[in-house]
């Protein structure tokens, strides 16, 4: 049985979580809409676009997958790319683990599904301020999740009504998202160095090999270089 105090904390945490999702929702609307438009231009229906958002729920991976579908990449190449693009979630999940200690294991199985760059960034900040119940995570994560699904489906459904999305600057939505997320990663000179190596390699590798392997190879090589120059424990 839950005490009255526990119930009231859970309710407060739920409302707090939903409130903290607001900036994420505002971020997801234009990016999700642009994702939907891109998906629609590639030939995906709003239903197919929504399906991907429901099951994958990872902005950059979805953009990249759609780009690869367009260029007729193989199934295995898309899966491996998804794995590598989303590899960072291992770190997010690992960083959140200590904050999940008081949460029931079966709830962690559910909550961890919703970890994204943005939901992680907000929740790790809040969790470091004090212990939060599962209600907070569900409130924050599911609000963000629903806004992503909705904005991608709306983008796919009504994107065709906009004659020229390029003129409206939609082709910057993806690079813009990467740019903002990258800036959050540039903690010191080593990260800046690794980023520059990876960025330059990704361009050079396009001209050296066929397929969509340039991003994967560039990132792995740059991260290995990062390990060698990193002197922290």
């Amino acid at each position, binding site marked *: 049985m839950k005490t009255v105090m526990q119930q009231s904390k859970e309710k407060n945490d739920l409302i707090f979580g939903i409130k903290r999702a607001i900036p994420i929702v505002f971020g997801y609307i234009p990016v999700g809409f642009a994702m939907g438009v891109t998906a629609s231009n590639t030939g995906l229906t709003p239903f197919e676009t929504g399906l991907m958002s429901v099951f994958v729920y990872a902005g950059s991976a979805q953009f990249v997958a759609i780009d690869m579908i367009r260029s007729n990449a193989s*199934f295995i190449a898309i899966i491996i790319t*998804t794995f590598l*693009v989303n590899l960072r979630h291992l*770190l997010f999940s690992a960083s959140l683990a200590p904050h999940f200690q008081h949460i029931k294991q079966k709830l962690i199985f559910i909550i*961890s599904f919703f970890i994204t760059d943005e939901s992680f960034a907000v929740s790790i900040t809040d969790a470091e301020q004090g212990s939060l119940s599962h209600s907070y995570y569900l409130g924050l994560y599911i609000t963000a999740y629903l806004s992503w699904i909705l904005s991608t489906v709306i983008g796919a459904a009504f994107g065709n009504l906009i004659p020229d999305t390029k003129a409206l600057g939609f082709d910057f939505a993806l*690079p813009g998202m990467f740019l903002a997320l990258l800036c959050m990663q540039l903690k010191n000179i080593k990260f800046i160095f690794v980023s520059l190596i*990876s960025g330059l390699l990704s361009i050079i590798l396009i001209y050296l090999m066929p397929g969509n392997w340039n991003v994967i190879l560039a990132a792995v090589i740059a991260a290995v270089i990062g390990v060698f120059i*990193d002197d922290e424990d």
Partner: protein
Amino acid sequence: MRTSLSYLYLVLTMGFVTYLLRMLPATLLSKKKIPKLFVKFLKFIPAAVLSALLFQGVFIYGGRLNISFYNPLLVASIIAFPIAYKTKNMFATVLAGMGIVMLFNYII
């Protein structure tokens, strides 16, 4: 990748792979430790992947390498960079950059 069934299979597999990455450390890590060297490697993966995607998305314009002020995505990135770096805000960065590209397309 054209038929519905193969598409469903694709998104389910993508979702499964992504879910494993999100779920496994949170559920297991409190009990086990990953090798230090691998942690170091993983630490650089987000920045490296994001940078590779950014460079590819910005410098390749219209299907080829375009390092000039006639590349609206490059111009937008250069102007949006300080906004992104200062605010760390995806919303502000994306909207500002989209506004710059819109203005660019209107002028040129």
